[in-house]
């Protein structure tokens, strides 16, 4: 699916990853425009339902990124998030959802380049996977 443009949603924490993404911008680092960044106070605030709703409304891939462990502005938000994603990934994997469309990362405010690299590689990964039609088509049936 070379010419497929995946829709990627990124839920990021404002103190680290968002600042990192900002740094990528100010340093003129190019990265795939497919990603739509949504800013949250902390990864601890990112609920698993946001990910499910993203897929239901048309996302093909979702990134969740925040501060490295021990860097969290609220000291432990990322630790709570880590436990949540460990359990959530296993659960949706058992359900047969495509966990290759989920990308979790720690990106600090100084890691503009790393952010660009993650977005580019993940966009490429989702591009090869193609659109996440099966979940979306099921969600369309919700409307009927």
């Amino acid at each position, binding site marked *: 699916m070379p010419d497929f443009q995946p829709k990627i949603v990124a839920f990021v924490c404002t103190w680290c990853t968002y600042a990192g993404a900002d740094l990528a911008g100010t340093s003129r680092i190019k990265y795939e425009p497919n990603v739509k960044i949504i800013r949250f106070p902390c990864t601890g605030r990112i609920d698993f339902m946001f990910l499910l*709703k993203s897929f239901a409304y048309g996302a093909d891939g979702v990134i969740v990124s925040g501060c490295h462990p021990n860097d969290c502005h609220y000291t432990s938000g990322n*630790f709570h998030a880590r*436990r*949540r994603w460990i359990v959530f990934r296993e659960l949706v994997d058992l*359900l*047969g*959802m495509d966990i290759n469309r989920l990308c979790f990362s*720690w990106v600090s405010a100084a890691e503009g380049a790393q952010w660009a690299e993650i977005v580019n590689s993940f966009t490429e990964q989702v591009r090869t996977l193609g659109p996440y039609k099966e979940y979306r088509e*099921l*969600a369309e049936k919700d409307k009927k």
Partner: protein
Amino acid sequence: MESIRKKAKELLEKNAVQVIIGYGEGLDKSVSAIFVRKPENAETLIFDDRCVHNLAVYLLKNEIKALGKPCIIAHLAALRTILQLASEHQITEDDVLVLGVTHKGELMEFAGFKDIEKYIASANIDISENEKEIINKLEAMTREERWQFWVEHLSLKCIKCYACRAACPMCYCSRCQVEYNQPQWITVEATPVGIIEWHITRAMHIAGRCVSCGECYRACPMNIPINLLNYLTVLTIKEKFNVSAGTSADLDSVMSSFKSDDKENFIKQS
């Protein structure tokens, strides 16, 4: 069985408790929970291998709390439920008198929650082999097959009767997330993805608190193996965080506590 009746009668006569939550038989020999309040009715209590219901689900119901201090006949899963509810500050030692019962029907009296913890530490609380077998079989499938399995079982069969929520002793929220409509996270009616979102939410909200009593599966009128989703979180949490729910009355809530060295292999970090 006889020892349970004798103990129950004695407790009611001494007014140590006001109601015995135990098992009884209907006219057609089907088993259900009964609430004995008079000593002379103690002989309606029974116990045999048909008595699987997790009676701890009744401990937090307002109309039952209004009856006064209960004594509960608790099998292993119910004992773990009581400890888990205690660790979540829902019940204290003097709220309930716990009468343990082994699967052979032997009565166990406990001095307090600490006593129960000792018994549970010695008991086998793992997920049963055949349930692990089913989960392994699911994990052996390809992703698409698994998705097809759950779409068929959940999206096309679940009728959203919420028996799984009502039967689960851990689902005691006074107003469940699906009962809020600003925003309406999960559709009220039984829509395909709405059903999947509901069952993921239920499994995530019970994660780290499920004592694998199997009531959700037993209550489901459509016989959907939804307990497998909870058991998967139980296995994951045991393996990754080395914690089992309902093993102590002062356990930290698994999903709202953490260890700085929790292990994982998927978070990208340069």
